[in-house]
């Protein structure tokens, strides 16, 4: 009994890590722009596909580059390149879709709708380019199972959890200790006064999208390594759920994104552990709904007050 419980905790940590990494992107962009970037889940999907192509290339699956790199090198390169390229996708969305609207002073609602459309374009663009067939992500790491008594854990699971923790520490450092992080927090409080400090708003926004999207890329590759079947709609449900996790944690707060992500991961895994798996979403979202009813601003959110 205890053994299954601990095993489930490890599974929950892994699931929670995916949600957290994705929830981050929602929360960062919301914190700075008050924009719910509904395309973010699809950016994760694009990240997984980018990882797929880079991995296949580096492992020598394509005839124009028939040199297979050693597994470890290929993995590290795939992670780095995927994060860079996915960040480029996020920044492009900002440039092409969101920035022109911002320049024209469009209402937030229109930008959110634009984000939804961007997500649909990414999904269907993928469908049009690559077809409806699913892709099988290549095996990049040899699975190692560590047995700690009756509990077994794979190297991949440990890597996913560690990655999420490292990202949390890194982002928390950037946001609380660096000037650009302060600028991100300042924009969320009072966008008007930021240029008066000599800070180019667009630079801060691009930096935010780079952070959020590169983490989406990381989530995409880790997800693909764990569940190696890719399809154009894979970002949809996990994206929605990560968004809900960000809201439950208190959207705009990095700690909230992580707390929300792990709570959702735990609830889902624990529901499945004790009930039929078809109850999973029903139970988990009922619980999240209850949390929001009690704390409408989320766990870490604070209602904003202004002094006149």
């Amino acid at each position, binding site marked *: 009994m205890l053994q299954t419980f601990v095993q489930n905790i490890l599974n929950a940590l892994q699931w929670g890590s995916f949600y957290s990494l994705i929830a981050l992107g929602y929360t960062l962009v919301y914190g700075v722009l008050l924009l719910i970037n509904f395309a973010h889940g699809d950016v994760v999907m694009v990240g997984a596909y980018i990882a797929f192509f880079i991995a296949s290339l580096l492992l020598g699956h394509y005839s124009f580059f028939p040199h297979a790199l050693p597994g470890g090198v290929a993995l590290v390169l795939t992670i780095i390149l995927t994060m860079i390229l996915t960040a480029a996708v996020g920044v492009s969305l900002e440039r092409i879709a969101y920035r022109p609207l911002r320049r024209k002073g469009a209402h937030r609602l229109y930008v959110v709708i634009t984000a939804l459309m961007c997500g649909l374009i990414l999904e269907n663009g993928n469908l049009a380019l690559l077809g409806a067939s699913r892709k099988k992500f290549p095996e990049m790491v040899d699975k190692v199972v560590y047995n700690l008594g009756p509990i077994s854990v794979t190297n991949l699971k440990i890597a996913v959890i560690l990655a999420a923790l490292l990202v949390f520490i890194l982002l928390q450092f950037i946001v609380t200790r660096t000037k650009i992080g302060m600028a991100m927090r300042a924009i969320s409080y009072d966008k008007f006064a930021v*240029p*008066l400090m000599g*800070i180019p708003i667009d630079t801060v926004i691009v930096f935010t999208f780079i952070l959020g999207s590169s983490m989406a890329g990381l989530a995409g590759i880790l997800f693909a390594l764990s569940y190696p079947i890719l399809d154009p709609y894979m970002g949809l449900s996990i994206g929605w759920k990560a968004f809900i996790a960000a809201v439950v944690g208190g959207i705009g707060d990095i700690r909230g994104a992580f707390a929300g992500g792990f709570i959702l991961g735990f609830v889902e895994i624990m529901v499945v552990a004790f009930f039929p798996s078809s109850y999973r979403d029903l139970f988990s979202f009922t619980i999240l709904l209850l949390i929001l009813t009690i704390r409408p601003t989320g766990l870490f959110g604070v209602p904003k007050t*202004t002094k006149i």
Partner: protein
Amino acid sequence: MLLEVKDLKVQYGNIAALHGIDFHVREGEIVTLIGANGAGKTTTLYTICRLPPPEAPKLVAGDILFRGQSIVKTEPHDIVRRLHIALVPEGRHIFGNLTVLENLKLATFARRDQEKINEDYERIFDLFPRLAERRRQRSELLSGGEQQMLAVGRALMSGCQFLMLDEPSMGLAPLLMYDMFRALKRLNEEGMTILLIEQNAHVALEFAHRGYLLETGNIVLAGTSRELMDTPEVHKAYLGG
């Protein structure tokens, strides 16, 4: 000449806010723009800062010269980082979710001169000792007067040489207001050029060297503070007969 505004016409959407105003500020001066609500005072400062619409107006005609160069096409952040012009906006606009120290530090975003930055912290804490006491507090917890000090301190931390203030006395108790003007006077004596907006014409004219009277988007009077104080227009409208 530090700042020259020439035949400046601006509008919000299709509504004209300034109908072609001219004024100038020389190095080392304190100049004040006085006028009633809606005269276009804040609009003028926003335009000089090149802030984008919708909060700020669109420039439709005229020119703004700073040290002889047109700044009409300059980006708002470059107004601060390259030209060293700072605005203390009306309503303070401090970042309430940051601490006092973080607010000050953020204003040094574009600066690389760390030694001078450290001197500026000392200078500001000397000018406003209350800020030094509260440096670790979230700034939304400060009183209104302290927030105003922070807003001025933040502008100074940007390394400005030309300081524009929009109603710095608003919401301050009289004693605090005189403290504030005493601090600004000291800054001016140390070489800071100041452009001040005030509804309280009496205080403004006592403080400034010269002034302009704005009325619904036009400058209707200009002169030294003494001259303006003696004009019937200013007297009647702003000094209570």
